[in-house]
């Protein structure tokens, strides 16, 4: 740059004391000056662990007090203490494990088989146009059927024993898993697949290292849905045709108007549901550690 140009630059470019200017502006307007009103904030969640716990405990305490002082009729609802007593009875008679164990067996067997088959079919539908064209109409037609309506049919096919109950849960979890898996595959960033191709990765590598991991978040959130469907179907199937199991226990309790046992059964279901949600949460943390 020439000397003249540099000199010219010096004329247009000056240093500027912004802080001094702000200070003098403040002084000049001293009479008519106020802070800008704050309008932001809110719409944001912070964890309140104590509040969560407090509300939970308060509901149970109020429920218990209500039952004790006749505010809640014992004909309408059993107290938490009575329900706890019913659970302790189950423990002492050794029936707890019989009911819970059988229910868990049906749940785990049905859900695992349904999920594995669902993922396999979902991957095929996600990858192959032929599979999609052939299977999707079937999936769409069978998905909305409440699978419990098929239980009588499953009893004919698989017998009155465990087979029919497991089949109900299997079918109930299969369809949502297919849908979660193939829509997860559809949502994998096309550019990542193109990247894989551009580096000469084999087809199998692209599926295994790019498509399946990319679909995993959708598959895992599908697990949450299929798990809750599985619990609903478990109870329904056990209420229709089982001697043991939480569903059968609740049904018997209802028939005998033993509200304490009924509530106890519902609590067991709630605990199973929460444990499953917790396990899926752990799986998500483990498998999706690359996300936040």
């Amino acid at each position, binding site marked *: 740059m020439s000397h003249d140009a540099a000199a010219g630059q010096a004329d247009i470019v000056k240093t500027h004391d912004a802080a001094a200017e702000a200070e003098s502006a403040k002084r000049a307007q001293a009479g008519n000056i106020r802070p800008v009103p704050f309008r932001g904030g809110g719409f944001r969640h912070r964890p309140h662990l104590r509040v969560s716990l407090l509300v939970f405990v308060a509901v149970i305490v109020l429920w218990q007090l209500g039952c004790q002082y006749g505010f809640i009729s014992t004909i309408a609802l059993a107290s938490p203490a009575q329900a706890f007593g019913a659970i302790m009875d189950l423990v002492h008679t050794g029936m707890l494990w019989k009911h819970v164990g059988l229910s868990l067996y049906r749940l785990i067997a049905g859900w695992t088989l349904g999920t594995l088959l669902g993922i396999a079919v979902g991957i095929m539908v996600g990858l192959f146009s032929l599979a999609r064209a052939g299977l999707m109409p079937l999936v769409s037609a069978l998905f909305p059927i409440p699978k419990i309506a098929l239980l009588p049919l499953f009893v004919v096919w698989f017998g009155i024993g465990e087979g029919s109950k497991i089949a109900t849960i299997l079918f109930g979890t299969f369809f949502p898993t297919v849908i979660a898996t193939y829509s997860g595959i559809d949502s994998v960033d096309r550019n990542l697949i193109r990247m894989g191709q551009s580096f*000469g990765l084999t087809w199998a590598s692209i599926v295994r290292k790019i498509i399946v991991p990319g679909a995993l978040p959708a598959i895992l959130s599908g697990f949450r849905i299929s798990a809750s469907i599985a619990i609903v179907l478990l109870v329904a199937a056990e209420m229709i045709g089982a001697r043991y199991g939480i569903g059968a226990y609740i049904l018997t309790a209802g028939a005998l108007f033993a509200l304490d046992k009924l509530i106890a059964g519902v609590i067991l279901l709630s605990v199973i549901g929460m444990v499953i949600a917790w396990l899926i949460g752990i799986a998500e943390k483990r498998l999706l550690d690359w996300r936040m």
Partner: protein
Amino acid sequence: MELIVDNVGHDYGDTQVLRDVSFTVKHGEIVCLIGPSGCGKSTLLRFIGGLERPDSGQVLAAGDPPAGSLNPLTYIFQDFALLPWRTVEGNISLVLEDHGIKGKAARAVIDDVLRRTKLSDFGKAWPRQLSGGMKQRVAIARALSVKPAVMLMDEPLSALDSQTRELLMDDLVELWLRERFSACYVTHNLAEAVRIGHKIVVLSRRPGRIRETIEIDMPLNERGERMAELDPIQRQLWLLMRDEVREADRELTDVA
């Protein structure tokens, strides 16, 4: 290895995308493709790397790739295309695994390319932890690991903020001075084109034809200092493109 783009033309349905495009990428040469948005320059780059097939014409490779080249035509993408579920090392290892390079051999390659892109401290980081500039450095490291003959760069700096772009451009120039790679560099940024291009191919708006090809006879390492001399070239390119860009901007588009 040289690349010859021979009379390439293409349509998407009724939309004419490219017509009669011919040029060559010589050994150690960076060819910039510029043109208004939607002129088919990214499509052209996909033809060059064999990711799509043109309707007419062909892309030819002349001569053998350098010894040990695992993937002669290697892309750098605008959006980096890193797998978010793999660490920096994992992303590089991804493109080596299929060539049977694993364990110690892979370790050596990964360490080498991370050193060359100044990423040695970031091998274990997840992509989400990295800034845009660092992600693109990882993508460059990944490209170097397969010893490409020609790098196909699709707007590599366009997703970055302007300061990061400056830094990475300096790094690219430095890298070229060391490695003398060949490249086809697609951009809409004229300043980038005159900074790094030995040859600049100007495409017209759709259907993309070659408006003009200019060569810049100034060594890359001097261009940072001699920006003022490049200004008239950039100005000339802008005059060539201005009306095309204006027209292209007013078009309704159905194809991406």
